[in-house]
């Protein structure tokens, strides 16, 4: 019996060996040993995918908590917990990525004490630190419930609106500031992506992405974990995503038109193809489909369209950080296979954490506090919110 298992165990042992090897090379021989980063292309896949896209992918946390706790849209309450959990894990993965990506990670805490209020990245750093803390606080009720700590549940139920207001404000700053990061390189970013309105675009698209991610998450995890949500939720999320996407795309089109760059979108060169893929194929198309009530009645189709929106906005973040920067500077960069590996490993680690949390915590369960599902029997819950 043992012999039959050996090859399998060897494969299993090899799984941690790859990240261990990459991390060893990274921290002993430097970033150059495992990345294709250069002085011309100092930010690569880890910044583009794990940080810029990662933060955007975590935006379900603030959009859904805002909808339910602040705007009292009770129908979305069942997806609050998965959304908060996704955001919390997402931010932890962003921090993990930064530990690998920055050259001197032992100094990552310094923005707290060495201020440079002229630096967008200083502000971004503080947002990461504070919002991860807030997400941890928003996540704790799941632990209290698991432990049966009634005092904690009650206290947290009472504090929830404060956490959520802080979290939404921090997210508003953080999402838009990631766009502001690129305001200072007007000469280095292709004009299809550079705009003084980058912060607005990043914020609007993060709202759409937050709704889309939550919708996909609800659909696919209900299948994976055997929990079913009312189709009403994904139906409403689909409509909301479509509306926000169309506002976002209209704003970008208007901005390009006003600055005389709209023609560049139709030149059929590399830039315009990446732009079209991001805005038309993976943006306008799914948004337009989601506008139709008939289309939204099929949860599978909604999930497909929402997944397309997710891809489109992730492509936007990658386009800004990688495509537009290379087109604007003439730098050339193709990620090293180890960079791709690390990006995927971190994505898998996040998914594994999500799976573990769902297994052991009442993520989809009926709870008593903030993010508790069924709110239909609600008077008691509303009282807790005050």
């Amino acid at each position, binding site marked *: 019996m043992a012999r039959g298992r050996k090859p399998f165990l060897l494969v299993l042992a090899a799984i941690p060996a790859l990240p261990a090897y990459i991390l060893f090379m990274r*921290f*002993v*021989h*430097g*970033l*150059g040993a495992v*990345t294709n*980063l*250069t*002085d*011309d292309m*100092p*930010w690569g896949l880890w910044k583009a995918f794990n940080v810029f896209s990662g933060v955007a992918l975590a935006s379900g946390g603030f959009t859904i908590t*805002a909808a339910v*706790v*602040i*705007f*009292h849209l*009770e129908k979305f309450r069942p997806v609050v917990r998965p959304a908060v959990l996704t955001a919390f894990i997402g931010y932890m993965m962003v921090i993990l990525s930064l530990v690998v990506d*920055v*050259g*001197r*990670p032992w*100094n990552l805490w*310094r*923005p707290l004490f*060495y*201020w*440079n209020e*002229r*630096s*967008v*990245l*200083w*502000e971004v750093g503080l947002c990461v630190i504070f919002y991860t803390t807030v997400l941890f606080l928003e996540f704790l009720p799941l632990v209290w419930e698991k432990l049966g700590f009634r005092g904690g549940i009650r206290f947290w139920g009472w504090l929830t*609106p404060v956490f959520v*207001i*802080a979290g*939404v*404000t921090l997210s*508003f*700053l953080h999402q838009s*500031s990631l766009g*502001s*990061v690129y*305001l*200072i*390189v*007007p*000469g*280095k970013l292709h004009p299809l992506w550079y705009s*003084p309105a980058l*912060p607005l675009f990043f914020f609007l698209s993060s709202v759409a992405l937050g709704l889309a991610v939550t919708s996909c998450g609800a659909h696919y995890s209900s299948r994976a974990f055997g929990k079913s949500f009312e189709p009403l939720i994904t139906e409403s999320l689909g409509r909301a995503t479509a509306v926000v996407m169309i506002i976002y795309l209209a704003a970008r089109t208007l901005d390009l038109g006003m600055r005389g760059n709209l023609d560049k979108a139709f030149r059929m060169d590399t830039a315009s193809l990446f732009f079209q893929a991001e805005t038309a194929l993976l943006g306008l198309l799914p948004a337009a489909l989601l506008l139709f009530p008939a289309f939204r009645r099929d949860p599978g189709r909604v999930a497909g369209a929402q997944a397309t929106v997710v891809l489109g906005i992730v492509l936007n973040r990658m386009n800004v950080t990688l495509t537009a*920067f290379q087109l604007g*500077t003439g730098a050339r960069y193709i990620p090293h296979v180890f960079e791709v590996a690390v990006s995927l490993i971190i994505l898998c680690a996040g998914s594994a954490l999500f799976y573990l949390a769902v297994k052991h915590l009442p993520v989809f369960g009926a709870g008593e506090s903030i993010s508790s599902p069924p709110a239909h029997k*609600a*008077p008691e819950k*509303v009282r807790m*919110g*005050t």
Partner: protein
Amino acid sequence: MTMGCGLLFDQTLCLGCGACELACQKEHGQPPHKAVKLDADSFTFVGRVEGGYFQRHLCMHCEDPTCASVCPVSALRITKEGAVVYDASICLGCRYCVMACPFLIPKYEWNSPFPRVRKCDLCYEGRVSKGEEPACSSVCPNGATVFGERAELLRIAKGRIQREPEKYIDEVYGEYQAGGTSVMMILGKTTAASGLREGVLLDALPPLTGRMLRKIPVAVPVVGLMLAGFYFLTKRKNDIAKEEEEEKNG
């Protein structure tokens, strides 16, 4: 110490001897070598330009440095003398400075476990802070690189262009680029032919993000209060709806 000093490089006087490169490497404890580009061990290099000219490349030491403004911990800062200097001990290694510099100057130690951002520091530590001139200008045999007060250097540069307009391009590179730099250059060939970065904005870049950042102290309370307002409004709306429901039922 004089305020606002800098360097003036005159392309038409440069012999391409490379003495500045060697002096710079010695001053910074780097192995002596013929630099072929700016890199982690070469803070300056002299490149060949068509027509028998030579062009020095080095940090421009902006008067409102982009690198210093983007650094999340102020590991880069400008001294009162105008030198833009770097402190590795607080640096995170985020490389925003490398990404943002309009002249593509800062270089990174990609193959070190303790990587630093590397660039010309105008010999601040060893020389300029003590009132001495930088190593490169001190060894230049033909006066192609001279050190002095920025205002004085600019006057000299414009004087030379005015006296021999046929010899020079009618522009002091660095007078306005990126809002003005402490290192300035006058050229016999165009910026493109000289291998210098073209199209650098003629205004300081930090205000581009500064405008956004200044809104934050206002945005935070406004957004926070708006959210709190919506919280109470929608809650009240729900409560009223519920009461009506109950009245109807009861």
